[in-house]
């Protein structure tokens, strides 16, 4: 039993797992560049993990295999991390408290929690991708919230929306002036409202309403005046672990920085090469 735990805590196992992970992501890069799998990646980006395994819009066997394989390798890394951290904790308690080793232990624990939070974000909350709405239209979320587009303010020529964003110059599109006013309500009561710009979403508790882009107007002449205005393509997402990940990530970076400062000074060596 002791031998097994020593094996699971060893750095050899860590390096093997890391090599497998590098190869797994290298395979992932090849898969992501394949045109035939583009739709599969769209599904992965627009829905949560339980939908990937549904019969109706689920992923292909290859993508399922890749994702499950990734989860298995990450689980092995988690086991290795737990055993390795436990051995380090015992060493610190029994032998000697070395501050730099303690900082490194904290960094490893933070990494583990972050990876777990990241994994949780694939399953928790919800995500609606490419919600296309015109002015005065609304969209019902699955937890009873209603998202309503109150106004769309677009100062540029709507024809620029037919172009690719890469083709637009500073005179064609003014991202600081184009926005949409949206409101979130529940049970007939408006809870929040505000303007959403490109890269400036509306956040209410864990719900985020993001303006992905403006959509070309549906009706060009006559009829409903709302349809003559551009529409909006929104992403509505709720991620309960977002705050945890965004808090722990910089803490981990600071931890690595502190470790680096603590260990920066080089050990004394009489045999070092002569400097001029």
């Amino acid at each position: 039993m002791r031998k097994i735990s020593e094996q699971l805590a060893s750095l050899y196992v860590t390096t093997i797992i890391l090599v497998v992970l590098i190869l797994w992501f290298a395979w992932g890069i090849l898969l992501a560049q394949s045109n035939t799998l583009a739709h599969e990646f769209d599904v992965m980006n627009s829905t949560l993990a339980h939908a990937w395994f549904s019969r109706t819009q689920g992923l292909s066997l290859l993508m399922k295999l890749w994702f499950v394989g990734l989860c298995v390798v990450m689980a092995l890394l988690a086991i290795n991390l737990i055993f390795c951290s436990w051995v380090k904790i015992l060493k610190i308690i029994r032998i000697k408290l070395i501050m730099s080793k303690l900082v490194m232990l904290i960094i490893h624990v933070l990494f583990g929690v972050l990876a777990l939070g990241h994994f949780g974000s694939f399953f928790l909350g919800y995500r609606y991708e490419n919600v296309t709405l015109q002015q005065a239209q609304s969209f019902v979320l699955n937890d009873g919230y209603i998202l309503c587009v109150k106004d769309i303010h677009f100062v540029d020529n709507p024809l620029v929306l037919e172009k690719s964003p890469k083709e637009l110059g500073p005179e064609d599109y003014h991202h600081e002036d184009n926005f949409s006013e949206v409101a979130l309500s529940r049970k007939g009561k408006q809870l929040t409202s505000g303007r959403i710009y490109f890269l400036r979403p509306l956040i209410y508790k864990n719900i985020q309403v993001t303006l992905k882009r403006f959509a070309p107007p549906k009706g060009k002449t006559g009829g409903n005046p709302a349809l003559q205005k551009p529409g909006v393509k929104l992403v509505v997402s709720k991620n309960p672990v977002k705050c945890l990940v965004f808090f722990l990530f910089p803490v981990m970076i600071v931890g690595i920085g502190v470790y680096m400062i603590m260990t920066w000074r080089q050990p004394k060596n009489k045999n070092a090469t002569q400097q001029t």
Partner: protein
Amino acid sequence: MKHLIIVGYSTSYFFYSATLITYLLRWRNLWQYLSIIAVTVNFLVLLLIAISSGHFPFFNVFECLLFVTFILGGLGLLYSQTEKHRIDVRSWVWIEILFLLTIVLFFPKEPSLYRSNQTFLWVVLFHGFRVLALATVLFSAAHFIRFRLARRRKLLRNHILFRGKNFLLLTTVFFLCSEYSGMIWCQTGWGDFWHWSTTFFQSTVIILCLMFAFHIPGKNHRSDDIRSVIGAVTALVMLTIQVTKGLS
């Protein structure tokens, strides 16, 4: 303006080449003057790009690699030491700079095209930290290459290898700062901090390579050899990813 940028690029290329030659010949004062000129011209080209385009100079391959050569040049000049051995860490830094400037030869030597997000703080930080990470990883790679090619490596362990490890750790900090900025960028632009895409997988591969370099077991010379090879390969991976992004 484009002509001035090309002239500036060619001039810094010339002075970096002259620096390497005079450094290898150990013309002490001359290589120092030449390297100061090279780094200054490099900085002026970056300044010219920033003024003419109105954004920070690190959004395309040309700008990015010029920024890296500037930081590498500064580190080579101020933070490296001259050894008795002719091909030392400093020599490798100048060789790396010339290698980067040669890569730039194959790309348009002009400022990057306008993008509406180039003034967004997290986008700037994402690219800025990436460039810093690339510069420091190449500096650490210079140490690893020097260590790996030395015959009597034991003598260099505490001096060269240790320094290389320190700069690899600094690379990790910069790269993670870049990733954090990228996560905020992605969250505000697409409503999630992770995307299943080539770009995100490439970043993960870099993080895994950095983790791999720090997790090589053992404290013997064989482990040091492997550590130095992995450190140098990580730099190559980061550079390749940066260049291929520019190609796409």
